[in-house]
């Protein structure tokens, strides 16, 4: 048999039937949140359909939930109705829900792995583009629209065509202080926001293998920002150790049986990819985005580009427009950019390791004058609890950070956490699009350590120099 990629193996394991080049692909797991599901449940109701295997779905509200005083409820009546609609739909259709007051509540892509709902070798979807996160476990995980959410609820299948496979190998070792976020921003800077379109990306190489599961999730999370259908990382003992004992993971003998299968989930030696990209890990520096697309990124010792020096007219126009929006002049040093707000959170960077990295920088320091707001939003109830047990909340509070309740928060600003027009933010989230964090807001994407460093310095600085 020909050497297979990890993607080939996952794909072949889930084909129910083919019609030409189009497969009916079986979906093992679906995560559901309040924003992209109401119309899907309504569709089921209109057609008199019931979910197939309701137990294969897990729902949680995360986008609209307040991160302050949870007990006060949601004040915005439109948002409140959406969360209540999720509660009613889950009750009506027999789907497990971690409600707003459940200690397990959190960002959908944090609680999937945390509960062991995310498992290697599965196909997994959610009406959310950052579903690619779960590829860190060797699962084929991708975001879908609401019509497809309904399709999976009703049939447990999706009509799919196979993507191409790209290997992104980060060779060698990362320097001290360089994190998964810097790696993935460097990758997107290299291949571009549409560089992964039509592909499933497998991240490999020594530097990726050396990452923790949290770091791997950060990388796969942003595969979508390179336009990819999904991101994947091969299973190893770290994957298996992470899952052992999680409530929705198999237990006892069944876990061992599953783990034996999971250990086969790597690309075979000699497997052929449609494209391979190699990055030298040692050359990756802390990254800061300066524009309105994640590919508009520079190392912290770099400068904002000059559009007059870009030969491609479409690209130059894009840079020009981005600089106007961002309020930046060509040639500005990244370290001369001063944020107004700092946001540490999101499905990209709100796990315990992220909070530890930020706290280490913040410890014994104060948020700089001129920073109007610095906030930490843990990814889930259990992350928050763990951080508090380690005293991280005290470190943040003493430095002048706000310590909030779990949710998506200012990554997309659907709740009350947002930027005002013209405000500039050092953010550990995943998108720096125009208006993403609030109308007229200006986002710079960075790692948790770099966001913490910006908070205490009042401008972007190389965290390695602190």
């Amino acid at each position, binding site marked *: 048999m020909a050497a297979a990629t990890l993607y080939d193996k996952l794909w072949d394991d889930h084909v*129910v*039937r083919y*019609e*030409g080049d189009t497969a*009916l692909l*079986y979906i093992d797991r679906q995560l559901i949140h309040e*924003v*992209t599901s*109401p*119309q899907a449940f*309504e569709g089921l109701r209109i*057609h008199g*359909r019931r979910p*197939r*295997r309701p137990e294969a779905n897990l729902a949680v509200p995360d986008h*609209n939930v307040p991160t302050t005083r949870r007990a006060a409820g949601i004040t915005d009546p*439109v*948002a409140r*109705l*959406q969360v209540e609609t999720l509660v009613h739909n889950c009750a009506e259709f027999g789907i497990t829900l971690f409600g707003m007051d459940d200690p397990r509540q959190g960002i959908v892509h944090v609680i999937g792995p945390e509960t062991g709902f995310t*498992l290697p*070798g*599965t196909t997994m979807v959610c*009406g959310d*583009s950052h579903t690619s996160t779960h590829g860190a476990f060797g699962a084929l995980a*991708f*975001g879908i*629209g*609401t*019509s*497809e959410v*309904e*399709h999976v609820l009703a*049939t447990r*299948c999706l*009509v799919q065509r196979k993507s191409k496979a790209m290997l992104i190998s980060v060779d060698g070792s990362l320097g001290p202080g360089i994190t998964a976020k810097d790696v993935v921003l460097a990758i997107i800077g290299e291949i571009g*926001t*549409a560089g992964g*379109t*039509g592909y499933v990306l497998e991240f490999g190489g020594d530097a990726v293998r050396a990452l923790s599961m949290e770091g791997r999730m950060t990388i796969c999370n942003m595969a979508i920002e390179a*336009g*990819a*259908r999904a991101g994947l990382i091969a299973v190893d003992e770290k994957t298996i150790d992470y899952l052992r004992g999680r409530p929705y993971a*198999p237990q006892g003998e*069944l*876990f061992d*049986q*599953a783990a034996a299968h999971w250990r086969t989930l790597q690309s075979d030696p000699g497997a052929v990819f449609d494209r391979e990209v190699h990055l030298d890990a040692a050359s990756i520096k802390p990254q800061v985005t300066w524009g309105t*697309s994640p590919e508009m990124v520079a190392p912290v010792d770099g400068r904002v580009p000059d559009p007059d020096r870009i030969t491609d007219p*479409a690209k130059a126009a*894009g840079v020009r427009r981005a600089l106007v929006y961002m309020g930046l002049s060509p040639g500005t040093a990244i370290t001369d950019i001063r944020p107004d707000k700092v946001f540490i959170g999101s499905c990209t960077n709100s796990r315990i390791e992220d909070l530890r990295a930020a706290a280490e920088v913040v410890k014994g320091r104060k948020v700089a004058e001129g920073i109007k707001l610095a906030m930490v939003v843990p990814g889930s109830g259990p992350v928050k609890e763990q951080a508090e047990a380690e005293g991280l909340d005290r470190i943040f509070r003493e430095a002048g950070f706000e310590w909030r309740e779990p949710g998506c928060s200012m990554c*997309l*600003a*659907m709740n009350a956490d947002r930027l005002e027009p013209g405000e500039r933010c050092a953010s550990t989230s995943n*998108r720096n*699009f*125009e*208006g*993403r964090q609030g*109308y007229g807001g200006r986002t710079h994407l960075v790692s948790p350590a770099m966001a913490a460093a910006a908070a205490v310095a009042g401008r972007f600085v190389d965290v390695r120099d602190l």
Partner: protein
Amino acid sequence: MQPFTNFTGIVCPLDRSNVDTDAIIPKQFLKSIQRSGFGPNLFDEWRYLDTGEPGRDNSGRPLNPSFVLNDPRYAGASILLTRANFGCGSSREHAPWALADYGFKVILAEGFADIFFNNCFENGILPIVLDPAVIDRLFAQASGPGALQVQVELAGQTLAPAGGDVIPFDVHPYRKHCLLLGLDEIGQTLQHADAIAGYEERRQQQAPWLFT
């Protein structure tokens, strides 16, 4: 879904690359639990000079005169012409809902983001990928003093710009079939319920831990 029928429509040229779904429909409108009514807020942050809110009457809001959708030449446009990587970012199906609600039936681009591309077909919108040189030519034609009209013929897979050469395009046969007949895709899949049940039975043998 309504069957996709041949039509002739006005082309609205949106000369930007990497238009993301946050720009197509900003987040505050995602709080709706409906599928309809998003058209007036399509491209809200570019189209108006103030900030839109759900439930607000949009008729009296100040329009941004330099945004292409507000150009009288393109009133009633049903074909959107744009550049590379259209629809990137968030998976929100509210983006095609807003485009369809406004009246767009076809989007011509150098390329589309994957999830958005799929979401279009689910909502009777035909996204067409064209060669950058063809896109350039259409931009030139659509940006003239008069609006460009294009005739769209899905069965024969052709675009006929008024006074120009016919442009053939590709579309996946399954997608074309569903669009032409206005099929309920879930209904199509449910015809294979036996195959799905058979798969589940096999899968349960191989991976019993997924069925506990």
